[in-house]
């Protein structure tokens, strides 16, 4: 009896789940939100070196085609690669398309579509080592660089390479540059990445033999069955009619391994220039690049300019509450300062950003879910810095002599009037230099919000740098922009200090 009912129960459960699943969302909004990390580098999804505001890559094209076939348009959601699965689970996007290898481990937390790409692992060594290292076995006991979180790690693991010799990097370009520099003796990545980065570089050589093939697939939330079915149908269509084959050819990714997935090559298409990778000596389009950096610097400035005044004011209120508030409030505020200062800003940004949807659902404020990343970033920076500013204000408030309080009390000022008109105006002058110092730190700390995908200065510079083999020069350019922002902050701080030092002639402007 129960047995007979089981399929019905599953069906019912599916129907209930389907009521507000990814597919109906995509259908009703006509938008497929797809997640990726644009700083992960070419050829996945990366800033176009000749127009860094545009994101290009073979996965951009796959996402756009899939969205079209699902009856909508693609909307990109960017976040740090390691945060993408959390972002998917927090419903910040509907799917992930960003070189996610299908692994048993991941299958436990998410579902995968049918694969859209097949790769194998390929070693890259320095060209002078071309004949010395022709297989993994030749590299026994030598350090090998990989991209963190990638399948290359498992391949090395399976081959018995000890963890101490597997050197992980945050992006796919770094393993190659580290090999060139000699910090490692080889790097292992997917064959097409090795071709893309090392194929044109005379300092590097590809080791011919590839091994440990694997596949990339679209990631969806577990239980998002309806969306998964539609995605699979759309993918099958793209594979059969040559659309996928065309995209892979355009990006120079077509090889003999692809037909094994059922992908038709379709008509022969030439590889586009963006897929070749341009070495730095060919030159960056500096006008465009600087323009992009300038705009990213505006984002950094915005984050700072909005969060620092909030942090300063909130810090002052915290300090006053700690020193003069009723005991319970004072305790709570003190605990807030201790916890906030004692935990990494990065963790706070992550926790807030990815717990907002759940928090919104719990509080019955669904708007929290759609809170702009920039707003979340500003809230995090302000909340974190408020704790530091609170300590600065506290020290300054305590530095105001008791005799000032006595004089004010004797004149009939209340406690709050004394704080407002006498103590804070004086402590403010004491705390200002330290606050301006923190303003300078904040400019640079603001780059941490790129972890949730805010395109600020450092993220944009790294994105362009990785896409065009120019990470060092882009970092120097970004540093120059940071320096300018920092000098501006100092100049602003000095004028504030000058104003704060000036005595006020009158308690408030006289209106005659």
């Amino acid at each position, binding site marked *: 009896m129960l047995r007979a009912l089981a399929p019905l129960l599953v069906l019912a459960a599916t129907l209930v789940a389907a009521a507000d699943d990814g597919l109906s969302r995509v259908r009703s909004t006509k938008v497929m939100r797809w997640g990726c990390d644009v700083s992960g580098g070419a050829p996945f999804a990366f800033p176009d070196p000749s127009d860094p505001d545009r994101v290009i890559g073979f996965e951009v094209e796959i996402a756009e085609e899939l969205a079209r076939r699902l009856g909508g348009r693609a909307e990109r959601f960017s976040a740090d690669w390691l945060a993408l699965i959390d972002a998917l689970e927090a419903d910040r996007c509907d799917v992930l398309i960003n070189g996610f290898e299908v692994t048993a481990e991941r299958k436990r937390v998410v579902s995968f579509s049918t694969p859209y790409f097949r790769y194998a692992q390929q070693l890259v060594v320095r060209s002078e080592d071309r004949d010395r290292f022709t297989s993994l076995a030749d590299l026994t006991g030598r350090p090998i660089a990989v991209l963190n979180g990638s399948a290359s790690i498992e391949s090395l693991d399976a081959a018995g390479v000890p963890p101490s010799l597997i050197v992980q990097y945050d992006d796919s370009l770094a393993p190659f540059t580290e090999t060139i520099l000699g910090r490692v003796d080889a790097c292992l990545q997917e064959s097409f990445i090795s071709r893309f980065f090392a194929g044109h570089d005379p300092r590097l050589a590809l080791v011919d033999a590839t091994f440990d093939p694997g596949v990339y697939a679209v990631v969806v939330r577990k239980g998002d069955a309806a969306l998964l079915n539609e995605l699979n149908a759309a993918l099958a269509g793209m594979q059969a009619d040559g659309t996928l084959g065309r995209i892979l050819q355009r990006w120079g990714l077509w090889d003999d391994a692809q037909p094994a997935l059922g992908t038709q090559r379709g008509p022969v298409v030439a590889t586009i220039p963006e897929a070749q990778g341009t070495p730095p000596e060919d030159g960056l389009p500096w006008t465009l690049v600087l323009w992009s950096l300038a705009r990213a610097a505006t984002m950094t400035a915005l984050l700072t300019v909005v969060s620092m005044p909030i942090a300063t004011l909130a810090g002052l209120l915290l300090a006053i509450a700690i020193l003069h508030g009723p005991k319970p409030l004072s305790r709570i505020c003190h605990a807030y300062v201790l916890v906030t200062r004692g935990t990494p800003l990065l963790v706070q940004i992550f926790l807030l950003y990815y717990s907002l949807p759940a928090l919104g659902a719990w509080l019955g404020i669904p708007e929290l879910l759609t809170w702009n990343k920039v707003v979340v970033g500003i809230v995090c920076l302000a909340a974190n810095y408020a704790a530091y500013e609170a300590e600065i204000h506290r020290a300054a408030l305590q530095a105001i*002599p008791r*005799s*000032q309080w*006595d*004089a004010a*009390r*004797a*004149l*009939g*000022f*209340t406690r709050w*009037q004394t704080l407002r*008109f*006498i103590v804070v*105006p*004086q402590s403010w*002058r004491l705390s200002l230099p330290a606050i301006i110092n923190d303003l300078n730190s904040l400019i640079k700390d603001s780059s941490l919000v790129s972890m949730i995908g805010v395109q600020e200065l450092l993220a944009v510079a790294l994105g362009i740098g990785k896409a065009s083999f120019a990470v060092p020069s882009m970092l120097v350019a970004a540093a120059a922009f940071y320096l300018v922002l920092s000098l501006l902050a100092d100049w602003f701080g000095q004028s504030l200090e000058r104003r704060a030092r000036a*005595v*006020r*002639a*009158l*308690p*408030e*402007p*006289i*209106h*005659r």
Partner: protein
Amino acid sequence: MTTPALEAQGISKRWPRTGAVLEDCSLRVERRTVHALIGSSGSGKSTLLRCLALLDPPDSGSIRVDGVLAAGEGAVAADPNLRRSIGVVFQEPSLFTHLTALANVALAPHRVLGLDPGDAHERARRALDRVHALHLGDRHPEALSGGERQRVAMARALAMEPTVLLCDEPTSALDPMLTREVMAVLRDLALDAGTTMVVVSHDMEFVTAAADSFDFLHAGRIRISGSVDRLGTRGVDDELDRFLQRS
């Protein structure tokens, strides 16, 4: 008998570590008189003055300002209305460093009494004039000498038009030159009919010339009090004689 401007009865006070500092001190300051508190260093004069200024609560005893119970059993705790009817000039001037001299004086009339800025400034100028410091109004407190600062601090207290002005050795932090300057102003204030003052002072010349009555504190107790005329005759009290001899 008229209501005294300030009246204290049975004030006792002990500090946590120091022990008893004041024991059963009673005093009475008539309106429009100048009352001197004298006694050697550490005898409890400042402590008594802070109690009278309602800045520190006495452990026992009561204080009445213009007949209104301000401290002691049944008093409303630290009523700012009562507190501001007592002006205080401390040993250190403690000017507000972020304001000009004039703004230092005008701030409380404006913020505490709620006068509009124009009236507050008018009052501040009059108060500065009384201490011969009108010309210092635009100065930064750091640009004032110690004596000038103390005069501005007096003006700041006077601008609130207090019932009683309490002065705690306003010259103790000053060198002799500046002391003379401040004492001259204090004397003018004291001789100005209409001011009620309690002055803690070491300067017997000032006390005999400007004060009407005195209390002599010794080890936290009021040993002798009365009209300043009594200070002329020796042999009333050994401690007082010894004190007078020293100063």
